[in-house]
């Protein structure tokens, strides 16, 4: 019962909010414009430029879009205006305070007004809050009138423009195209923003730690002093051991996933009966759906001890967390990716190519080795590189199975660590935001980004260069 009333009051709130009102207005306008244009469409038929649907959509969009844009801009601008007006009014009072106290004062005023918890209260704050409340009331009127005004003006103009000659179809198309462009621009800008933030934070890191040391140093030990002059303070930030660890684990993973994935793809696409294929493919896809953390504890609790046991039984010293264990399990995790991508690529080699080879008396394996694989090679290479990217970026398994020790080694039986794992450990726990330790995470992120980007570019180039020369 409580739920139901909450739901209805929420619905009511939405309807009487400006957004609800313009939605309602748009719907109404759609209805009336449809009625109006249907009228002359029935009369003139094909001579009318646009179908009633387009006329109605045009009017509805003319109401909704300007009003919505106004609402959006208002909700961004209004708080700024409120703040600057409060600041101007209480200029004298604020000038007597420190920077920190100033922002504290403003925060408290806003908190009091909106009914949030305030950190402290004073007469001045209460007074300012009352002033802010009156401002907000005015703002509320502006919001309502602005919204409805925009909706009414544009709606009226659009509705009046509805006539048989109105090129509503073209206009609606333009509006839709513009919306799509805006969406893609948002996606691109976000990506650029993330990359830029990586770059700038990394630059700050390189002010503290020289880039040469980061790239070419031999030792990773991310310690920074909490107090100046602390004894164990000298941390070193050399990414090489991390990269080596990443490469080692990735290499082991690809050693597992590459051949097994590719061969299972070949089996599935060229040898397996349709019935077997229809079972095996979904099973592989389920394998791809297992959360990596599950693989992680599988690696840490089952595989690592197993390897350790085997190693010790033949007299090798194996650390309980080894690159081999992490690499093996990561390889298993990537098999479905490699297999599924390669399967698609191999399947896309035209049957005509295989027929041509069979027609010359080639056997199945000859055909696959000499015709299908060469034809599918670009796709397989890009599938492999994609798998490598995935392996490099993988964190969970390594955290759990390979340990945190940044050893610069190529012995797969030792514990190693990877770039991603170190990023996690750097950012776990309380950190100062501008310490070298925290910033190092950004530098590592940037490094990782550059590596995977390079791999992707290479993959793209390979695919483009050798892309389906058949057809």
């Amino acid at each position, binding site marked *: 019962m409580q739920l139901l009333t909450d739901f209805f009051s929420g619905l009511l709130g939405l309807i009487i909010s400006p957004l609800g009102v313009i939605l309602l207005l748009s719907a109404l306008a759609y209805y009336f414009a449809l009625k109006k244009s249907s009228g002359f469409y029935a009369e003139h038929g094909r001579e009318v430029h646009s179908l009633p649907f387009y006329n109605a959509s045009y009017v509805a969009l003319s109401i909704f879009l300007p009003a919505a844009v106004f609402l959006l801009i208002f909700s961004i601008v209004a708080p700024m205006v409120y703040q600057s007006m409060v600041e101007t009014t209480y200029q004298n009072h604020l000038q007597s305070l420190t920077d920190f106290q100033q922002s504290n004062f403003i925060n408290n005023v806003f908190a009091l007004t909106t009914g949030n918890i305030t950190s402290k209260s004073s007469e001045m704050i209460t007074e300012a809050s009352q002033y802010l409340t009156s401002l907000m009331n005015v703002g509320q009127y502006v919001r309502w009138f602005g919204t409805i005004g925009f909706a009414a003006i544009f709606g009226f103009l659009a509705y009046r423009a509805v006539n048989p000659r109105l090129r509503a179809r073209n206009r609606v198309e333009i509006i839709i195209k513009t919306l799509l462009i805006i969406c893609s621009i948002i996606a691109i800008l976000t990506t650029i923003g993330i990359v830029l933030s990586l770059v700038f934070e990394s630059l700050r890191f390189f002010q503290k730690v020289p880039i040469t040391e980061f790239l070419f140093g031999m030792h990773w030990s991310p310690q920074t002093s909490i107090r100046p002059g602390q004894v164990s303070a000298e941390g070193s930030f050399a990414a090489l051991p991390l990269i080596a660890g990443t490469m080692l684990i990735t290499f082991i993973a690809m050693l597992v996933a590459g051949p097994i994935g590719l061969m299972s793809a070949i089996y599935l696409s060229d040898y397996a009966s349709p019935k077997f294929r229809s079972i095996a493919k979904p099973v592989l896809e389920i394998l791809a759906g297992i959360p990596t953390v599950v693989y992680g504890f599988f690696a840490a609790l089952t595989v690592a001890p197993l390897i350790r046991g085997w190693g010790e039984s033949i007299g090798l010293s194996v650390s309980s967390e080894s690159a081999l264990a992490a690499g093996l399990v990561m390889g298993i995790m990537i098999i479905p990716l490699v297999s599924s991508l390669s399967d698609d690529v191999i399947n896309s080699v035209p049957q005509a190519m295989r027929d*041509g080879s069979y027609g010359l008396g080639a056997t199945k394996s000859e055909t696959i080795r000499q015709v299908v694989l060469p*034809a599918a090679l670009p796709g397989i290479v890009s599938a492999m590189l994609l798998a490598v990217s995935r392996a490099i970026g993988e964190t969970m398994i390594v955290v759990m199975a390979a340990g945190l020790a940044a050893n610069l080694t190529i012995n797969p039986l030792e514990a190693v660590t990877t770039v991603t794992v170190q990023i996690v450990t750097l950012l776990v726990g309380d950190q100062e935001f501008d310490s070298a330790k925290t910033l190092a995470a950004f530098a590592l992120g940037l490094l990782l980004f550059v590596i995977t980007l390079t791999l992707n570019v290479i993959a793209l180039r390979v695919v483009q260069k050798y892309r389906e*020369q058949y057809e």
Partner: protein
Amino acid sequence: MEVQSAVKDKVEQDKAMALKEETAKTAANTAAKTVKMSGKDVCVYYGEKQALFDVNLDILENSVTSLIGPSGCGKSTFLRCLNRMNDVIDICRVTGEITLEGDDIYDPSLDVVELRARVGMVFQKPNPFPKSIYDNVAYGPRIHGITADRTELDELVESSLQKAGLWNEVKDRVAESGTGLSGGQQQRLCIARAIATKPDVILMDEPCSALDPIATATIEELIDELRANYTIVIVTHSMQQAARVSQRTAFFHLGKIIEEGETTQIFTNPQDEKTQDYITGRFG
């Protein structure tokens, strides 16, 4: 009256001579054209569906046999039976007997790889492998180990390309990719590829359907030349093409051979109403 009888005698003599020549010619014809491949009561099933019904057809040596008929009539199916390309399809089942020079090609003791080396195939769409022109032609010989060394292989590649009428166009760029050639050249490359395995029979499944008329004409000219050394079976949708290139024609309809005989006879005086309707465009 003596003159008259003399004239009469001369006429009789000429007639007798002509008759003799005629019989001699027919005898020579039948002697030269031995049966290369033969299908007896061939039935093909795709799963439950029967695609061919008791097809009987002799394919004569050193001649072009064309298989015509509307889409789905079974002509391609029959063609693919001749080198067991249907084996690739799991649900396909073939009964009856198909022989190559008297040997049953569906005999379990016969190696399908060997069969396909002897019965080459050219497909509807030119399908050169994404390899160099040289490697395309050398593909079959390499698989079957036909040549002993590199020079021999070079010679075989060259002679195959020459027989396919492609050598002069590509001799300077045999190392370039076969897929860079024009459609007609690609198809001739596929024919060269088939020739390189030294087959007895070449099967062609609508070899010109993806080509322009000029390229088609070059392929047809090539088929005519190849006839001297190979037995050719061609499936075509173009009745004009069948009429142009083949010596014998078989008309398939709904999985059966309706009529089979000399191409000239089929196209000027078909004996079956269905054949007549099909080749004159009266179907339906």
